[in-house]
């Protein structure tokens, strides 16, 4: 049985491996190669150099990178605080309502993110849903909160909420009720239960939520473009510009490599910590 299993396993993985090799690993290899080509060339048959990385370091592109990572980090932390109570409710308090929330949140993922962000523009703009009706009913008005750094963070929080919520709920559901009860019986305050029982025992879920959200937010572009009106240029936007308008593939590739290495390290670190068999099925 064992021999058959190992043969079938290898065979069954082939279609997926074929797709990933042809359309994921190979293109990334090409990006890596292009990143060490001289600037403004369109083939990999040139003498390699690190000019593109030098441009990254000297032309202020690191500023986009820092902004991107900073906003991603702030948004992720806000998401953690927002999602924790709901995740707790889903894991421990709600019964059927958990299913309702799960379906509602998953359904929202099926709506193209640019439609949802556009909806926020309509909601928040001057003469939008909020300001328009406020002015109509009370005569008061406020400046549109669009087109600045804060609204980009808001957009990231909005779009990536599910990616924090579900891992957190999964993490909290792994905290045994007995442990919390015992702590309460021994006189622990709510705060002590939270910091000494809930947070440490839900740590795997918290970590996955943090990493997943951070990684996705670091590669995000639509929030900055649609809501932020390019108040801040994010790194993904720089990459796109270099590849398209800039016609500078080496620079685009080098910027991609910096982002990929950063995100890849975090993602691989996070993924390596997850025991998929335990989370998804039999432990």
């Amino acid at each position, binding site marked *: 049985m064992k021999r058959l299993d*190992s*043969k*079938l*396993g*290898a065979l*069954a*993985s082939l*279609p*997926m*491996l074929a*797709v*990933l090799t*042809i359309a994921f690993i190979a*293109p*990334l290899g090409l*990006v890596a190669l292009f990143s060490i080509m001289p600037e403004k060339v*369109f083939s990999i048959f040139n003498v390699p150099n690190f000019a593109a990385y030098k441009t990254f370091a000297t032309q202020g592109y690191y500023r986009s990178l820092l902004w991107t990572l900073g906003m991603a980090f702030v948004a992720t932390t806000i998401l953690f605080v927002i999602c924790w*109570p709901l995740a707790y*409710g*889903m894991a*421990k*308090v*709600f019964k059927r*309502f958990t299913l309702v929330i799960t379906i*509602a*949140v998953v*359904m929202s*993922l*099926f*709506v*193209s*993110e640019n*439609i949802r*962000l*556009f*909806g926020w523009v*309509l909601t928040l703009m001057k003469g*939008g849903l909020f300001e328009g009706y406020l002015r*109509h009913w009370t005569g008061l008005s406020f400046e549109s909160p669009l087109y600045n750094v804060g609204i980009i963070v808001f957009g990231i929080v*909005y779009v990536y909420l599910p990616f924090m919520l579900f891992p957190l709920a999964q993490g909290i559901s792994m905290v045994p009720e007995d442990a919390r009860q015992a702590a309460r019986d021994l006189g622990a305050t709510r705060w002590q239960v939270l910091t000494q029982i809930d947070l440490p025992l839900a740590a795997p879920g918290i970590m996955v939520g943090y*990493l997943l959200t951070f*990684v*996705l937010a670091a*590669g*995000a572009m*639509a929030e900055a473009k*649609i809501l932020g009106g390019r108040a801040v240029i994010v790194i*993904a936007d720089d*990459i796109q510009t270099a*590849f398209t308008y800039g016609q500078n*593939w080496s620079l685009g*590739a080098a910027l*991609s490599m910096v982002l990929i290495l950063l*995100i*890849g390290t975090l*993602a691989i670190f996070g*993924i390596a910590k997850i025991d998929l*068999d335990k989370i*998804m*099925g039999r432990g």
Partner: protein
Amino acid sequence: MGPSRTTRIALYVYGIAIIAFLYLPLVSVTFASISKARYLSFPIRRYSTGWFTDALASREVHMLAITSLKIAVIVTILSVIIAFFGALAFARYQWRYRSLFQKLVLLPIFFPQTVLGLALLMWFNSLGIIPSWKTAIVAHLVWIAPIATLIVAIRAYSFDPALEEAARDMGATTTVVLREITLPLLMPGLVAAGLFAFLLSWGNFPLSLFTTGADSTLPEWLYAKMVSGYSPLVPTLGILSVIASFLLVLVAITGFWLYRALRPQN
């Protein structure tokens, strides 16, 4: 003893508030889609369904919908096939590189889609392939096939390998076991994966943006109009696309419910 009554009520209210927060922008889009004015401004003075008629009659919109649909249907079929085998390698068979395979499958999901789209654009260019809706299928597959695999894998974890072994002991070949035992057992997972694959492909924007070449999908067109040259058709088409997705989910859930209700009890 669980949390107090007040805490429970507060949590329910909080849950409803979060859902409202998630759907509020769609409320604005819906209002905008039935506003009569060419340049939108709230409060809306006159309502009209004229933009819907315009959108449904427009040839350009038909083209966009057909391109999106072609991509989504093919991505769905291919994803389900890949996910069927992928999930078995992921969850069912104990083989040497299973853990490595699991991690490899997760990587594209964590990967920034914009960068993946651009990398694929460069890759296609270097291979001399001109991007079109067909190359977008490949791009969507890289991201959607792993997600479909995870969904089928959840199902694959829960079934008892003894069923397959029994069939094999009675002389069934591997192909027969796959067709007669494994496939029916995984069916609910495959249907769910297909539904996810279709909807995620239909709504995808960052991958399509760089890989469709001269063709354009609905989300791409909407984005182009959002950033330059607003058209009153944007909210209308946006909401139509959302309605189409939700109808599909509704049909799927009803179908599932009917199947459960009408299935002969044994």
